[in-house]
């Protein structure tokens, strides 16, 4: 018991420690306020602001779209709407999609991009790749939390004359809210940290994207690019970027906890 706890906490602290220690020398205020200069990967100055903005521009819309699609599917998967046999099959499909390595989503989007002659990478296709990656995660998480809603609660709503839609949207959704929020976080965390799916789809840029079809930098791909450079000083910057990524995920996690707690107020146990 103690060993397993130590392994979990130990790994977390070890990862954070490695990232902080290695990245500390490259951490400064300017990385949050400046975009990369030309020759950034060769040791020139500048910050990661372009990558931070890029990552947020990719992950927020992708999570938003995946959530909208996911909650509709998850509500529809319940017994009230769909035959349980068919629902189980769809769940299986979603689980398989969940398990598909993210690079496959990247290659899939690249195929489409090349087919329509837009192979250079863009914010738009990055969002598409991340959305595809997040849909199964968010859908199945929401689905599981909705499945936990007690039958008695649904019976209460139905016996008052609610339709299936009213029951789902006004009662079941409220009861499942903490799980829904947790599902969104899970999707977002996966989306913002994933390098493989955007590696082939967003390209790179030292500037902020000004349209959906501009290329953009993103934190995970920046880590990859920096870490694969031969220069040690440049490699160190990768840790600093990783640290920024960690902080973003941590912030989102804290916000989620707060929202989960708030939405639990009315939950029936």
């Amino acid at each position, binding site marked *: 018991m103690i060993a397993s706890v130590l392994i979990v906490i130990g790994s977390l602290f070890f990862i954070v420690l490695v990232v902080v220690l290695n990245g500390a020398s490259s951490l400064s205020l300017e990385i949050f306020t400046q975009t990369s200069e030309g020759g950034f990967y060769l040791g020139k100055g500048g910050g990661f602001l372009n990558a931070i903005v890029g990552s947020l521009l990719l992950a927020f819309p992708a999570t938003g779209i995946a959530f909208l699609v996911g909650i509709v599917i998850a509500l529809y998967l319940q017994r009230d709407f769909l035959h349980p046999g068919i629902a189980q099959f769809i769940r299986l499909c979603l689980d398989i999609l969940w398990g598909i390595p993210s690079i496959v989503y990247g290659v899939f989007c690249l195929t489409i991009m090349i087919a329509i002659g837009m192979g250079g990478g863009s914010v738009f296709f990055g969002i598409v790749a991340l959305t595809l990656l997040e849909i199964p995660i968010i859908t199945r998480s929401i689905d599981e939390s909705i499945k936990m809603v*007690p039958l008695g609660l649904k019976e209460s*709503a139905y016996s008052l*004359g609610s339709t299936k839609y009213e029951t789902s949207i006004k009662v079941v959704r409220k009861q499942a809210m903490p799980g829904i929020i947790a599902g969104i976080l899970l999707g977002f965390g996966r989306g913002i940290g994933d390098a493989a799916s955007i590696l082939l789809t967003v390209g790179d840029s030292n500037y902020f994207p000004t349209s959906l079809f501009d290329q953009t930098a993103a934190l995970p791909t920046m880590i990859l690019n920096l870490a694969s450079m031969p220069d040690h000083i440049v490699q160190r910057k990768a840790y600093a970027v990783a640290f920024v990524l960690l902080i973003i995920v941590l912030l989102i996690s804290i916000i989620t906890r707060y929202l989960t707690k708030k939405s639990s107020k009315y939950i029936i146990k």
Partner: protein
Amino acid sequence: MTKAPANQIETKTLNVSFHSNQVLKNIDIKIPAKQLTAIIGPSGCGKTTLLKSFNRLLEIQDDVKITGELIVDGTDIMKPGLDVPDIRKKMGLISQKPYPLPMSIFENVAYGLRIHHDKKAKALEAAVQQSLQEVGLWNEVKHRLHDPASRLSVGQQQRLCLARALAVQPEVILCDEPTSALDPVAAQQVEKLLLKLKKDYTVVLVTHTLRQAKRVADYVIFLYFGRVLEQGPANEVFTNPKSAEMKAYLSGEIS
């Protein structure tokens, strides 16, 4: 004009099975209007299933097969194409464990009115107050109407569920062992309420306590392993049981 009360609910050869396991067999019963009908019988004999078939609530579960006729106010509610929410609206349900909706006390009672667009905001407040007063909960909650309903005690939650059901003005109140999860004081409160309510509503009470049935029932239906073995006015059934099983049940040999 004193007429024998008309039958509110009537079933004709009602059969219910779950996963090809037949739970109710050829049920033919009549439930009189504006009276309290108790459905009694040993546990696991299909009492709850019978109760939930009245408002077609069984259908939200997996693999349920229902055949036969179920006549409510002269209409067969099993006929296809009927508006099921409308059927359910006529019958409030109080379950064994109270399930308030995940919202405030006020919103719980207002929920039914809101979904049926019955009341404007001003009238809504008055209707909520009236329903809460009807179940004797108003004085206990009037200062905290916007608190989560989950913070009420179980007994209060049960009365809230009753108020919520009454708000949509049903004709029938279906109660599934409504007092079994409550402490004696709360149980007595709910029981008294049911006696009061039968003046205006048809009350159907599933109960596993024979003593409760004897205290409150006007009409009794005795279920035994999915079949109706006896039904009739309470005093007749209790004083003059016909079947051997009912006699055994009354004497406490089976429970």
